[in-house]
């Protein structure tokens, strides 16, 4: 059990946005958190890194490595973020500061996490880029000189560079077309097999869930309505809402129908 969230609530000034959620991520697993937009899944992921906006308050317990994340001081959380817990987001276009080169980002992240030698930082950065299938010469480029797919890979490389124990992927495939989306997830799954990090995968796309996840939780209006193994939930959903979601998922069982036949009929 690498991360176990127990009775976490996130409250704003006058309403509860995440209500008494409990969730566990096991070592090295691909855990999917599924839900509609606005169900509180992104807030939950932000709460893990103490990244909530200042007007929201989290209560409950979040055990990571045997201690409660909510009790940690901001400085300890800073040391944790990026090295033990990493994030990747949907918007890969804006993932890098526009006027700094890609290499400057890699260098800086290693520096703040205590890597003193510049030569080591350089070689690690090149290694990280190569491990996601990009050339090391991209380190000298600026973000606008890279394509969207390259940026997405580079941001995955930064997230995985310091071998985190937990990777939080927040809607990473939403802005990508389905081929690129699968490519990114395949890359993630491959890196997971190499490094053994756990992935908390936040999505509303059932196709990706069906293909990559080990376990999943379904979230609705700030509560978790159902969680369990992938096969159990997909084949035998217990909760009405899960059934609705699955029924609403676009499933391409046959080849893509243009609707021409139906028009004629």
């Amino acid at each position, binding site marked *: 059990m690498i991360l176990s969230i127990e009775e976490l609530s996130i409250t704003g000034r006058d309403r509860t946005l995440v209500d008494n959620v409990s969730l566990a991520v096991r070592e090295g697993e691909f855990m999917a958190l599924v839900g509609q937009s606005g169900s509180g899944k992104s807030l939950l992921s932000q709460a893990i890194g103490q990244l909530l906006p200042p007007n929201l308050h989290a209560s409950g317990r979040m055990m990571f490595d045997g201690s409660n994340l909510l009790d940690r001081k901001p400085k300890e959380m*800073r040391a944790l973020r990026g090295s033990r817990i990493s*994030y990747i*987001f949907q*918007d890969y276009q*804006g993932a890098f*500061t526009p006027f700094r080169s890609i290499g400057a980002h890699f260098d*800086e*992240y290693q520096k*703040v*996490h205590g890597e003193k030698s510049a030569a080591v930082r350089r070689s690690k950065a090149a290694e990280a880029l190569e491990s996601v299938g990009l050339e090391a010469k991209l380190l000298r480029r600026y973000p606008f000189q890279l394509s969207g797919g390259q940026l997405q890979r580079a941001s995955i490389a930064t997230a995985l560079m310091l071998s985190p124990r937990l990777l939080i992927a927040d809607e990473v495939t939403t802005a990508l077309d389905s081929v690129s989306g699968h490519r990114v997830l395949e890359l993630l799954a491959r890196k997971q097999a190499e490094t053994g990090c756990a992935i908390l995968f936040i999505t509303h796309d059932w196709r990706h869930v069906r293909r990559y996840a080990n376990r999943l939780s379904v979230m609705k209006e700030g509560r978790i309505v159902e969680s369990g193994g992938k096969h159990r939930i997909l084949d035998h959903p217990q909760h009405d809402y899960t059934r609705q979601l699955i029924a609403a998922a676009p499933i391409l069982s046959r080849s893509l129908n243009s609707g021409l036949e139906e028009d004629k009929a």
Partner: protein
Amino acid sequence: MTPRTIVLRLSGAPKSKKHGWQAIAGALFVLLVLAASAYTFLYLKHDPTLTDLRGRLHGASASHPLGTDHLGRDVLTRLLLGGGQTIGYSLLALGAALVIGIPLGLIAGYRRGWVDRLFMRIADGFLAFPDTIVAIVLSGLLGAGIGNLVLAIIIVKWVSYARLVRSTVLAESQKDYIRIARTNGLSDARIMTKHLLPHIAGHVLVLASLDIGKIILLISSLSYIGLGAQPPTPEWGAMLNDSRPYFQSRPELMVYPGLAIVSVVLIANMLGDYLRDRFDVKKEVQP
């Protein structure tokens, strides 16, 4: 402005032809002023306060290229040294306003919440006073002098920089690259200095270069009414005032410092306009 254009423009890519002459003329004038100041600072050995009552109000001659004033002092010497005074103090005031305004704006915009509200209410308070009034009140309380005048200008001017920086930072810090910098464990101070500060440099540069002309005018005009540089310090505004009684007989005594003020302010504004177009900053940056 998209990030892409910043990088392109900073790396000196395509220049717009339209403003080429403006830039060249501006650069030449700036060089001229700088050269004159450097010459004055390094080589000029004449005493600007050396009075010669037998040689009062002389016209141009070989020993006094621009003539002498009502106390027989060399006008060219005073003009050159006065330039150092006026421009130097303007830059000092501007620099101090930047040093106060930029960090406050950064912190307010990045932290938000009560810090932001507190700083901005203070800024609103300062903004409520017209600059001339502050200068007059401060001179009244602390005595007239160039130091107090500079202080008054700082008090008035830092607010606009704090507000400009804050508004840019408010918009930028919502963007994903700042969020990702945070999720990668960077400290707030590092994010502010390394990831946000370079972003606002262009905006601040434009506002500052548009402001410098105003500050020069303010220092000159307040010196003219006797609140700034005190005699016998050579200062353009004070020189204007000194030569006022002789306007009928020797108008050029007023024309020289007046022309100096006008041309320097003009150059500063031209440079500011050029930078604004070049950095593609929105109209709201205009002071």
